[in-house]
């Protein structure tokens, strides 16, 4: 991989830091009046998700990380691996539990997800921003109660638990934002 110097650090650039792939979030150029320039850099470790603050001398460089993000379709899981397919080539990739961990509660078969590949293997999976799922368990609906506020927990088909309005019932389909875990609306 190519090396990137501090002045090429851009938000979204993937680099290697302490043997882990990281994504650069912010890069601030700092230079005291008569002093040496340096860069304050915020990075996200793509393996752990942790955000790091690092200080580099201007001109220092980091090796690029072989990280690509690709849309793939979720096919099935055999319990050990989760299988995703590239829609164009039909090539299949096996993701481990740690790679799908955060996405698991939203995943339905056939969903198109963003799979982050590191050295060709799935490192993490981002579910679609919005999913439509069936309520499999909730308190009985209060008929007619559509205007009042108030909410109750509902378990969805994939295992996620979200807060939904009181009038909804088991078997109803709802739309949820996976980034916030918030109920977006009822699907008829």
């Amino acid at each position, binding site marked *: 991989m190519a090396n990137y110097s501090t002045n090429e650090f851009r938000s979204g650039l993937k680099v290697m830091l302490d043997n882990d792939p990281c994504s650069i979030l912010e890069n601030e*150029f*700092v230079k*005291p*009046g*008569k*002093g*040496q320039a*340096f860069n304050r850099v915020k990075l996200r470790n793509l393996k752990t998700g942790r955000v790091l603050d*690092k*200080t580099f001398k201007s001109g220092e460089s980091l090796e690029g990380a072989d990280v690509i993000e690709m849309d793939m379709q979720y096919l099935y899981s055999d319990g050990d691996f989760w299988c995703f397919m590239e829609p164009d080539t039909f090539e299949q990739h096996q993701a481990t539990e740690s790679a799908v961990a955060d996405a698991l509660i939203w995943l339905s078969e056939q969903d198109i997800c963003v799979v982050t590949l590191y050295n060709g293997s799935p490192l993490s999976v981002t579910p679609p921003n919005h999913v439509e799922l069936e309520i499999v368990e909730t308190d009985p609906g209060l008929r007619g109660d559509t205007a009042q506020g108030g909410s109750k927990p509902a378990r969805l088909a994939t295992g996620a638990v979200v807060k939904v309005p009181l009038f909804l019932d088991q078997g109803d389909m709802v739309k949820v934002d996976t980034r916030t875990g918030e109920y977006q609306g009822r699907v008829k």
Partner: protein
Amino acid sequence: MSDWQPGASIKALRRRAQLMSLIRNFFTHQSVMEVDVPLLSKSGVTDINIDSICATLSGSLAYLQTSPEYFMKRLLASGSGDIYYLGKAFRDGEIGNKHNPEFTLLEWYRCGWDEHQLMFELADLVSQLMDRDGASDLKVTKISYEDCFHDKFGLNPHQASLSDLQDLAAATGSLSWAGETRANCLDLMFSLKVEPQLPEGLVFVYDYPACQAALAAITTTEQGYKVSRRFEGFLNGVEIANGYFELRDPVEQRRRFDLDNTARQATGKPVSNIDTKLLDAMHSGLPACAGVALGLDRLLMSDLELKSIDQVIPFSWLRC
């Protein structure tokens, strides 16, 4: 916003024009003469951390000035009396939210003054510039470099050993600081740990470490160690000014130039042409004086509460 359009709003540009006009009025009122010294010179700057942008003139190398200082000192040595410059300066490689390679600075010199008198005048100027409704409430604080460093780290920055400073810098920044110079370690810790905690308003930090004297005179404190008579001004935590009680000794000046160039060679940077005309002027006699440079773009950022220098310059380098 498209690339062809300015980064600054027309409102910001109007304020910019107003500030420049207020500055000129201020100095006219104080009988300080404006000088428009050259931007292009046959000599660059030796300072290890400041790089000139080079140009070609009839096939020979020329340098865009990183500051009007050398030319202004030649005028002072020629008997100009108090002078100011309001215009551009250029520094290679400096691009960021607070840096543009071409920027506007105000620099002025007061003959017979020391740096503390100059801080007083700078505070007066800034409070007049920021004052829109006749009731200036700019808070001004003065604190020595030693005190702000000691408050944060419990160390005397002038007397601490190099290895102690390197350990602190490595812990603050990263391991690559473990082999750095005294000046670089101090700068890193000051920028990362002290600057963010400076009080609001205008803060003067004075008596910088002797290893960061640049063009300031060096003096020995009552406790027996050396400090430079250099100060910096911070407005709401952002560095806006750098001033000196000026070094006048041409032999010491020559020694510092040579040291700079040795350090440049050691880090693989091009060696700079030493400005011998400045040295000649100092031999002939620079009057005792204090001088300060103020970054106009940053002053405007603070005044308008904007985060990026691109928002106060008609066209920052990104748009040129």
